[in-house]
C-alpha cells in the first residue's frame, strides 16, 4: 500500500519539540510545516494547503483553544488534533466539542500519533470528496434545469 503523505502543521511554542517531531514525521513521509504560536499557525494556513494541524493547548499569547476557534472559522475542513499535557483533558474535550478531530497526550506514543494523523487526513479527504460530489450534483441539476 502506498502511503499518501499528509500535509501536517505542527503548532507548539516548544521549539525543540517542534523540530524533533517534524523530523520524525517527515521521516515517515509526511509533509510538515511548523509554527511556534497561534498567530504564526494562521499565517501558515493562509499560504499553504494543510490537511491536519497538531495544536498544543498550552501556549503563551493566543492559546490552543483560541487558535482552534480561528482555524475552524476560516478553514473548517482542516482537521485539528489537540496536543495536551496530562490533567488538561477537559480542555481537549472542549476542543473536540469545538470541532477538533481528536487529542493526544504529551509525551505521546508515535503509533498513536501516526494513526490519528492518518485518520484525520482520511476524514478530511472524505469530506472533500463529499463536497465535490455534492457540487457535481448541483452542477448537473442546474444544467438539467436549463
Amino acid at each position: 500500500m502506498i502511503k499518501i503523505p499528509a500535509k501536517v502543521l505542527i503548532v507548539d511554542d516548544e521549539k525543540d519539540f517542534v523540530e524533533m517531531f517534524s523530523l520524525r514525521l517527515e521521516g515517515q513521509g509526511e509533509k510538515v510545516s511548523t509554527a511556534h504560536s497561534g498567530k504564526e499557525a494562521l499565517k501558515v494556513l493562509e499560504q499553504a494547503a494543510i490537511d491536519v494541524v497538531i495544536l498544543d493547548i498550552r501556549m503563551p499569547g493566543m492559546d490552543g483553544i483560541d487558535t482552534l476557534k480561528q482555524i475552524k472559522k476560516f478553514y473548517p475542513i482542516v482537521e485539528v488534533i489537540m496536543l495536551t499535557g496530562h490533567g488538561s483533558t477537559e480542555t481537549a474535550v472542549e476542543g473536540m466539542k469545538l470541532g477538533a478531530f481528536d487529542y493526544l497526550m504529551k509525551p505521546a506514543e508515535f503509533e498513536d500519533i501516526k494513526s490519528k494523523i492518518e485518520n484525520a487526513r482520511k476524514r478530511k479527504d472524505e469530506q472533500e470528496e463529499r463536497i465535490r460530489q455534492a457540487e457535481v450534483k448541483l452542477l448537473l441539476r442546474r444544467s438539467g434545469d436549463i
Partner: protein
Amino acid sequence: MEKFYNDNIRLLLVDDEEGFRAAIARRLTKRGLKPLQASDGKECLEILEKGPMDVVVLDVKMPGMSGIDTLKCIKQAHEKIQVILLTGNIAISDGIEGIKAGAFDYLTKPVEIDHLVNKIKQAVEMIRLEEEKQEELEYRAKLEKKMIDTERLASLGTMSTGIAHEINNPLAIINESAGFMKQVISSPEMSKCSQKDALLMGIGKIEKSIKRARRITHQLLDHVKKPDLKFSEVNLKALLYETFGLLKKDIKDKQININWEIDKGKSILWSDPYQIRQVLMNLLSNAVHALQRNGSITLSTDEIEDDIILEIKDNGVGIPKENLGKIFDPFFSTKSFDEGTGLGLFVVHKIICGLNGEIEVVSKVGEGSSFIIKLPKRFEKKAVVQV
C-alpha cells in the same frame, strides 16, 4: 461533686497504729467509702502494684519506710494517684514537705472525719479534672497533627503536580528525539553500521525510561482537582465488586478469600463514583499485594451519623510503625520501581480529602493492615477554597 458516689472511690488507708487505722476505716465505711488498709509503706506499695487506686490516705510517721518516702515512691510509680497525708499536730513542716513532694494535701491528727471525707472527694475531683485536661491535650495534639499532615500533603501535592506538568514537556522532546534517532538508525543506509544494534538498544532504554517517567507524571496529574466533578449515587458494594473484577487474576493466583460484611443499607452515598473507584482500586490492589497465599481481605461498612464508614482489612504483612506516618506521602514506597510509583496512597488521601472525607490506617507487622475511610453520605461543596 454530687455525682461522685462514695463507693466508686478506690481508697487505701495507710497507718501503722492499727487501732487508729481501724477506727478511721470504720467511720469511713459508715459514710459509704470502702478503704483498703495497709500497716506500712511497703505493704501500701504492694497493694498499689496489684490494682488501680484513686486516693491514698497516708500517715507520715511510720516505722520503716517513712510516709514522705512512701509518698515519693507512690508519685513516681503511680502519677495519677492523689495522696492525703496525715501528720502529727506539731509536725506541720512534714505536711509542707509532703505537698512539695506531690501530696494533694495534709490533715493534722486528730482527724475530723467529715474533714477527711471532704478532702478525699476533693482529691477525686482533682483526678477527674486532670484526666479531662489530659484528654483535651491528647485530642488537641491529635487534631493538630492531623491538620499539619493534611496541610503538608496538600502542599506536597500542589508542588508535585506542578513539577509533573513541567516535566512532561521536556519528556515529550526527549521522546521525539529518541524516536527520530531510532527512525534514522533503522533506515536502509544505516544497515552497514556495525554498532547499529547497540545504538538501538540504547534508544530502547531511553524509550523505556520515558514511559516510566510518564507513568509517574500521569499518575500525579490524574487527580488534579477537576472543576466539574460528576456526582451521583455511589453503591460501594457494586463498586467493590467491579474493582475486584479488575484484580481477579491476582486474587485467583494467591487464592485470596474475600469476606463480605457489607451492610446493604449502609453502603450507599452521594459522591463521585470515578474517584471512589480509584480509591478502591488503589487500596484493594495494595491489600492484594500485601497478602501471602490464602490470605484474606475483609470488607465492612457502617453508618455513623451523616457518614459512611468503609473498612478494608487484610491479614497481610502489615506496615512497620516507623512507616505509618509516611505512607500517604508522595513517592514513599517500599516496593521496587516497577511494582509501584509510591503514589497510590497519596492519590487515595488526596481524593478522600477532596471528597470531604477522612482516612485512617491501623496496622501491625505480621498481623495486617486496616484502612478505614469515612465519607459524607452526601457530598456538599465546602465554602473553603480547595488547594
